[in-house]
């Protein structure tokens, strides 16, 4: 078991924002869905660093990303 990032899509879609997707150290991992206007995480590629949490919570105060056990819903 290991931690991965999970985006609360309903909450994220309220903001006109793509910031976290620009700062993930991994390419092709923290993606942006332009149709639903939300970022999302490819769990298999996420290394669980929580840099995206820093961006969304500490920098932007939007609190849309949490770290969860991989495979966990919610």
């Amino acid at each position, binding site marked *: 078991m290991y931690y991965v990032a999970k985006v609360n899509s309903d909450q994220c879609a309220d903001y006109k924002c*793509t910031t976290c*997707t*620009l*700062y*993930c*150290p*991994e*390419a*092709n991992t*923290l*993606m*942006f869905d*332009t149709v639903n206007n939300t*970022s999302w995480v490819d769990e298999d*590629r996420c*290394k*669980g*660093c*929580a*840099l995206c*949490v*820093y*961006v969304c919570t*500490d*920098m932007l105060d939007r609190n849309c990303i949490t770290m969860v056990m991989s495979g966990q819903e919610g």
Partner: protein
Amino acid sequence: MSLKYITPAERFKRYLPKDYVELVDFGPFGKTQDEAGPGNMGQFKELVEEHPMCSGCWMAYYIRLIFASLPCPEETVTLGTAGCGRLAISQAAVPFIYGNYGDQNAMASGLTRAFRLRFPDKQKDVITIAGDGGTMDIGFSMTMHSWIRGEKFTTIMLDNEVYGNTGGQSSGMSPKGAVLKMAPMGKDFEKMPATKLAQAAGCVYTVRMSPTNIKKAAKIIRRAIFVAREVGPTFIQAYTSCNIEYSIPTEEVFQDAKDQEKDRFQFEEYMTDEAKEVIERVEAEEKAASKSRKAAKKAAAAEAV
């Protein structure tokens, strides 16, 4: 490579690996920076594939940014050496050359010259991307001599101020006093003045920076490449922390990079008059092209209504 080699015949597509097809369909090849550049990472298939660099590594982040900033990935070759960065650089869809430790700038010299002979009417971009140990310690003489000879390619130093890949030896770029696993008493001499050495050796464009501002970092990478095409050797020293050897919690890696911007990696950009001319010309051309693309798009949208 060229765009022609990358693009598969339509009927073969379904036999090719999914990641390859995604790169062809949604990758940055043949596209502009507005369509697939640093500003919209996360919305196209990026060149860097999965790699084994550590969780939260800022060096991995900067490598991601380098590849998203390339003016012409299909006509680019990267060269590197032992060290953490090559673990990701070698996993990008851009040809990568890996030689003996520290010889990346020597190999790049030959390659740049060979390209100019073999493809006189084509612009091939050659970029060496190596660690501080590879660039300024073990590869020092080859780095310096490529600059002294005025070789026209770009050198990017991934400066994490330590030998990260081999478990924490101090490097010439570690700051004075740095206590590292294999420098337990603290390093006892100053960090090497890399950009000053580069300028003295003949680099026509040098930058020292901590890449926290995407737009700015991308602009610098592109400037270094454009100037190397026409004028001479260019050099970027970028802070790319090692969270393992400097014990930085991963969620604080970005904040640390911002702190370094005010400390050892204060922004410094140097260019010769000739380099400045190239930068001003190319950036004006890019701006005009982007403007006319936007106008054409707007006109097409208006027509569709």
